[in-house]
């Protein structure tokens, strides 16, 4: 991480960048926040470790409007989102100096808490240059430890690969963390009976409090004014009174990002209620791959996405009934 800080200071000093977008240590050891660093001394609390899961591409939309270049640290899965935003002219490539930071899989504090580890004072073993094998957690009830893998975010278990799609330079090495099939969960749900499926989503979505955190963090979901806030669609309900409204919100949100969602997993990570929102997007990705050919959003700059393209021999909608 020190190498990253030195490089950032260097670029800031010689004026190639006007500011650095990275993470600042939060009040707890496991919640670093994205922050701008403009002066030398700000770097004191710059941090980049296993808990820095945030996808900084979305911040670049506003950053592109500021004066001068912005240095941004992008993990491999963030670079897909950056390319998607470039495709849609929302970020300005030459206003961004991209450092591809290494990644050994990011951690999910909810999982650590779920293991019964409470009263956390400090965590070691989560630094970027550690081996990322085990975490030793110093808590007020004594020292606890757990395997790095068990605390990893779900999205890192199905990681899309550690090579950065777009970068100016790369700092820090990465470690392969993929050990699960990306669509396993989706297939498990698809295999359920309609009643079970309905019950599963009813239970999950009834927890939704419409805090819009998923919308605010999603790089693909970056409209200037969301359809759920404008009077363009008569759908501007904020407080939901009935079970169907969350379904409507989440299905339509999944639809709007379909073909553009890079499966960066941020929506599930930030959801305060822990709803597995990535299941919606991944379902669309699975369908698109099966019906219209493998497609990874953000892997290239080709403007045609699956929902704005067609082939004469596409499958008929009736296929859904046949597939069961």
């Amino acid at each position, binding site marked *: 991480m020190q190498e990253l800080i030195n490089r950032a200071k260097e670029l800031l000093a010689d004026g190639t960048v006007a500011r650095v977008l990275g993470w600042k240590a939060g009040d707890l050891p496991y919640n670093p926040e994205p922050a701008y660093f403009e002066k030398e001394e700000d770097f004191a609390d710059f941090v980049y470790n296993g808990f820095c899961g945030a996808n900084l591409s979305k911040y670049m939309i506003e950053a592109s409007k500021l004066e001068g270049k912005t240095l941004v640290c992008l993990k491999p899965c963030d670079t897909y989102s950056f390319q998607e935003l470039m495709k849609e002219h*929302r970020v300005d490539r030459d206003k961004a100096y991209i450092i591809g930071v290494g990644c050994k899989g990011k951690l999910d504090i909810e999982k650590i808490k779920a293991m019964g580890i409470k009263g956390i004072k400090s965590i070691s073993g989560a630094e970027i240059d550690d081996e990322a094998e085990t975490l030793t957690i110093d808590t007020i009830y004594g020292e606890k430890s757990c395997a790095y893998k068990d605390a990893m975010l779900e999205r890192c278990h199905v990681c899309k690969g550690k090579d950065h799609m777009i970068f100016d330079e790369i700092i820090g090495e990465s470690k392969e963390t993929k050990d699960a099939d990306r669509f396993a969960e989706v297939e498990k749900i698809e295999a359920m009976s309609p009643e079970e499926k309905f019950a599963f989503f009813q239970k999950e979505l009834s927890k939704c409090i419409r805090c819009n955190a998923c919308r605010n963090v999603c790089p693909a*979901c970056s409209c*200037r*004014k969301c*359809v759920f806030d404008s009077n*363009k*669609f008569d759908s501007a309900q904020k407080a939901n009174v009935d079970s169907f409204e969350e379904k409507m919100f989440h299905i339509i949100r999944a639809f709007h990002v379909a073909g553009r969602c890079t499966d960066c997993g941020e929506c599930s990570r930030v959801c305060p209620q822990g709803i597995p929102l990535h299941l919606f997007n991944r379902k669309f990705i699975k369908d698109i791959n099966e019906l219209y050919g493998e497609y990874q959003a953000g892997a290239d700059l080709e403007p045609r996405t699956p929902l704005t393209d067609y082939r004469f021999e596409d499958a008929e909608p009736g296929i859904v009934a046949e597939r069961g």
Partner: protein
Amino acid sequence: MQRIGVFVCHCGTNIAGTVDVKKVVEMAAHEPGVVHAEDYAYMCSEAGQEKIHKAIKEKKLTGLVVCSCSPRMHETTFRNAAEKAGLNPYMVEIANIREHCSWIHKDMEEATEKAVILMRAAVAKVNLDAPLKPGESKVTKRALVIGGGIAGIQTALDIAEAGYPVDIVEKTPSIGGRMSQLDKTFPTLDCSSCILTPKMGEVNAHPLINIYTYSEVESVAGFVGDFTVEIRKKARSVDMNKCTGCGLCQEKCPSKKSLSEFNRGLSTRSAIYTPFAQAVPNVPVIDRDACIKFKTGKCGICSKVCQAGAIDYDQKDEIITEKYGAIVVATGFDMIKLDRYDEYAYSQSKDVITSLELERIMNAAGPTGGHLERLSDGKAPKEIVFIQCVGSRCADDRGKSYCSKICCMYTAKHAMLIRDKYPDTNVTVFYIDVRTPGKNFDEFYRRAVEDYGVNYIKGQVGKVIPQPNGKLLVQGADLIDSKQILKEADMVVLAAAIEPNEGVRKIATMLTASIDTNNFLTEAHAKLRPVESPTAGIFLSGVCQGPKDIPETVSQAGAAAVKAIGLLAKDKLLTNPCTAHSDELLCNGCSQCANVCPYGAITYEDKEVNDHGIRETRRIAVVNDALCQGCGACTVTCPSGAMDLQGFSNRQILAEVDAICR
């Protein structure tokens, strides 16, 4: 709030028969925004429209809902009525309570309830309507005719007569089409080429008509008044300016084995050929699959003997791009394939032929030089059997469900000509019904029966069995005498069904003209607009629209020409105002909409925008109203709802959905 007037039409008893119009009016009065509701027997009549004028003026209406027949029928009528009374014509909505309600429901109470719901949806929609003004688009004063048969020729001549330039695109090396293959024509027994060749000459000589033969339409873009068409002029390997049409090359060409399409494969032709003597243009074409020079590189005799030096082996296909205001489809027809009708032994015996093949045999320029003879042994047939409705009026998938309309007449013609020229030949016709619906048609058929003794038998033929002695045993039924007939015939002629030329489906897709399952192009209205396609600017001439004979084809060709002239005569066209529009405050500039726009009507520009005090330049989508046709694909691709369609906006459709599901 809008001031809306609702008018419920009785349409005589069409609506009032199964919908309680009084109840609909009463329910309409309670709808939000409705200040005037009344019913009348015929809203589309002068008196009906007068009621609309009076209501608009007196009650100062800002919106109008007419519950009547389909908007595709009278939407323009009621819009004009509103305009005359000073109301913007696009503040009018139609509730279809006839085709979608009164005509298809029996129970009065059920139909009335549905009519009320449809009325509510229309009122909900008109509440959110905004006044619109149609834009204008230019008209290119040039017409394109696809197909060079009698239909295409007649249309081209009529359009050129009105002073507009016309291009004809013909797939085969010469114009003339199906008619050039006929011997005589009914009901006047004129010789077909005697009445066709002068017209072909006229077309060839006409200064305003340009003919592309051996060419096909490659692609069509744009829309009414402004079509951009790419025509592929296939390489003829003969320079059309130099060639004098002397025909020496055809004589000397050593490769003589390919089958002549013009003679329906009954005779052969050389590799370099003109389809028939009176071909226009009289310039041969090299069939590159049969030509020895192209196959092996040797030969080249034709270029040696040609004094005009017109042969050019490395001529390439040429793509010509041209702009047109109107396009007329005149692609004609062909006989269906008979390989699935093996009960008639068409593919087993050479003496079982189709009527078109008989035309060629009886034609002086045909394979047998006009002598009627059996193709198997060349003898003159003494006993000929005609079988009607082969493949027509068939509900199974082998044939066509429709009646091909022209077979009864041309079979009567064939029978009469044969009996006249060879009096000792017996002719028998097996028929289901003889259909002669035209001027002098039935008299013509009666002459065949009374003066020439053609033996008409009401009944069908079960099967035709080729006998070892070369004759054909025909097993048919005579329903009148209730006898089974076993007749030994020398020749059997099948009056096979006709179907549109293959390749018409590809052209229909290019022109976005709708086409039915039998591959006939669908007309805008079966009775009132038979020569126009629902797609504006596309006109239908000839059999591509449905089976018809030459008199009807020529009259329809003229009608299509008049419609095209009506379009070309205008300097500008009113365009559909229901186009897409992007709200600059909501647009993200993400260019998803440009990907789905079929007309390329969306462009992007950086614009200074004041979004509630934030002043910044943003990348905004801009819709070109002249190009946009209002399909709405962009409105659904736009996540933020910035792109909306005027006349069918998101809130309007949602209002209709709410009104229906309330």
